């Protein structure tokens, strides 16, 4: 049973339950009202309504799973940063589970804070930017399946979004626009510089990222996550395309904007960059969204290069996928706390002069492998 069938069953059961009421009302009430309730019941039982509600329920489940993972990711982030810098990290809140509840406590604290909008800010842009940023980041997660049976699909056969990987990469690159919007509308020089840096970073790192993904699509012959993972049954793609894997990881860090590439929100130079004017839960959402994007990045790297949910069947497929994503995220964190932030003048040079040729080389390797008939 896949997620669609599961959700369809729940929705069907609910609609049956409620339709009893509608139809009975339609029988009891006089014709004018009765017709209306019968119509409501008919609409609720129609295929389009059922599938729409099913997809809604699916996306809610997927987002819930993602948010629970995000709590884990924030915990890993704080714990690893603490241990690498030789202190404990979160400890007392949730003592038995290693301080896991600290993020919830911080979230509650952020909820209680006042949301301040600068007087001279562009109100609409200031309001829209967090929505676009958080929404686009959740959109990435919607198309990434955790296994063959756990993903957002539109029919019971379990076919996921046909060009899921492309869609995920496209949703990934919406965020810089939201950042630019936030930077412009905050009416502050630091936020503006942060937004501009984000745009420049996207310019230089999106292309190697897409090229590395393109070499994977070339080998797998499909844009679909399920097909890509199926193509890695014999050998995971990071073995033949190790260069591409490394370039992909570096570009992902730049996309996610964590430390070696967190130029848009450089604390030392730009006082948190484009998030300077955002306070309270809006800042909390940005903080959470960075973890969501890290999770999405780890999931993309897992699905494209690390064999997705492939693994010994001792552990369920979904857990395999999550374990791999967690390992990728841990490596991200390890790198984050090891290296300093690169300078703004090194950023474009690294992107265009080092990563882009390597990505092209990787595409060449993929083309040779494909024409040679090994894949």
């Amino acid at each position, binding site marked *: 049973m896949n997620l669609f069938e599961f959700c369809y069953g729940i929705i069907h059961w609910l609609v049956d339950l409620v339709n009893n009421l509608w139809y009975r009302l339609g029988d009891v009430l006089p014709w004018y009202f009765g017709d209306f309730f019968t119509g409501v019941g008919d609409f609720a039982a129609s295929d389009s309504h059922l599938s729409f509600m099913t997809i809604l329920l699916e996306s809610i489940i997927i987002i819930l799973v993602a948010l629970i993972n995000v709590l884990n990711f924030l915990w890993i982030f704080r*714990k*690893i940063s*603490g*241990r*690498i810098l*030789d*202190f*404990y990290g979160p*400890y007392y809140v949730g003592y038995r589970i290693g301080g896991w509840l600290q993020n919830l406590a911080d979230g509650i604290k952020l909820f209680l804070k006042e949301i301040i909008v600068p007087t001279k800010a562009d109100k609409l842009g200031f309001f829209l930017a967090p929505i676009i940023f958080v929404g686009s980041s959740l959109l990435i997660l919607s198309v990434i399946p955790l296994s063959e049976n756990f993903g957002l699909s539109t029919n019971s056969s379990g076919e996921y979004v046909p060009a899921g990987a492309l869609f995920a990469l496209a949703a990934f690159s919406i965020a810089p626009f939201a950042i630019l919007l936030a930077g412009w509308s905050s009416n502050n020089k630091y936020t503006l510089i942060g937004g501009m840096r984000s745009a420049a970073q996207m310019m230089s790192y999106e292309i190697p990222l897409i090229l590395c993904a393109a070499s994977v699509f070339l080998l797998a012959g499909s844009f679909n996550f399920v097909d890509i993972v199926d193509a890695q049954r014999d050998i995971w793609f990071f073995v033949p395309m190790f260069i591409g894997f490394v370039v992909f990881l570096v570009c992902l860090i730049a996309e996610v904007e964590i430390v070696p590439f967190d130029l848009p929100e450089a604390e030392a130079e730009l006082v948190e960059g484009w998030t300077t004017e955002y306070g309270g839960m809006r800042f909390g959402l940005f903080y959470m969204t960075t973890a969501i994007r890290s999770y999405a990045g780890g999931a993309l790297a897992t699905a494209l290069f690390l064999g997705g949910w492939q693994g010994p069947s001792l552990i369920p497929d979904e857990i395999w996928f999550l374990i791999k994503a967690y390992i990728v995220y841990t490596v991200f964190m*390890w*790198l984050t*706390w*090891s*290296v300093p932030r690169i300078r703004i003048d090194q950023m474009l040079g690294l992107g265009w002069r*080092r990563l882009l040729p390597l990505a092209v080389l990787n595409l060449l390797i993929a083309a040779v492998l494909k024409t040679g008939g090994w894949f």
Partner: protein
Amino acid sequence: MVAGGRPRKRGSLGFVLKPMKRTGSQLVRTLILGKPNTVLYPEQKLDLPQVYRGKHVLDFKKCIGCGNCVTICPNDCMWLEKIDDPELGKIERPGVDLGRCLFCGFCAEVCPTVALHMTTEFELANDKRDELKLGPKDIRDDAFGSTFTEERQKRLVPVLDLSKCNGCEKCAGECPEICIAMMPIEKTDAKKPEINLSKCSSKGICAEVCPEKALTMTEVYESYFEMPEPKLMLDKCSGCGACARKCPSEAIYMYEMPGTEKTLKGGKKGKPKKRAVFVLEKCVGCGRCYQTCRFDAISMSGVER
């Protein structure tokens, strides 16, 4: 950058992999093999060194109430309090206002009898200002001094009890370093051994030889501070003895001056005038005598009245 020399070549991977190796070993050390260096404060506490300057502790039995700590305190946060102790009688002991204390430790360093210590206790916060003022009874701990060895230098020196001395000059004769000289006290018959402590080798021969046991070998802590010494202006001294009564270290003795008796009406002679004699080995330099003297007969530089 340091000038000169060829810049060390390091590839772009050296900027990434070398730090990652370093942090990775740190991560293994703190996460898997052991625990971080951080001390979980309310549960665990650091082992503070003995010389840490925390809360004050006063040994009531050693303290002589000289008030040197009060005088030297740069923040003026100590005061002397008169208390009635069942054991020690009427005494004066210092108290500390922790709200103004800067924990410089001068009071503990200047204490001539090492009665005042600073402990390693540092949790002194309080939500009421009044409770930060610790009186002498709050900081009393007579047993604390024996729990550790004092860092200050101390030496064995002969200390003179002038009331027992009969001026026999045996100590001056036996002293191997020839650092004791019998000096006549001005306008009196008596003589007083003046001991040059910088030459003294602490052998204790003078104390053994003394027939009256006026000299005793005592351990004296050396002060880090140069304390002022009192000087007597003999023509002004009325011989009232107030300074001798006030002196916390009992370093002032009253001596009669023969030949100063007033002739009373019946041809009788009255009692002779007295003068004060200072034994500077005992003096702690507190300036009490200077403050007490109503005739300005004692001069002491550097002490406020």
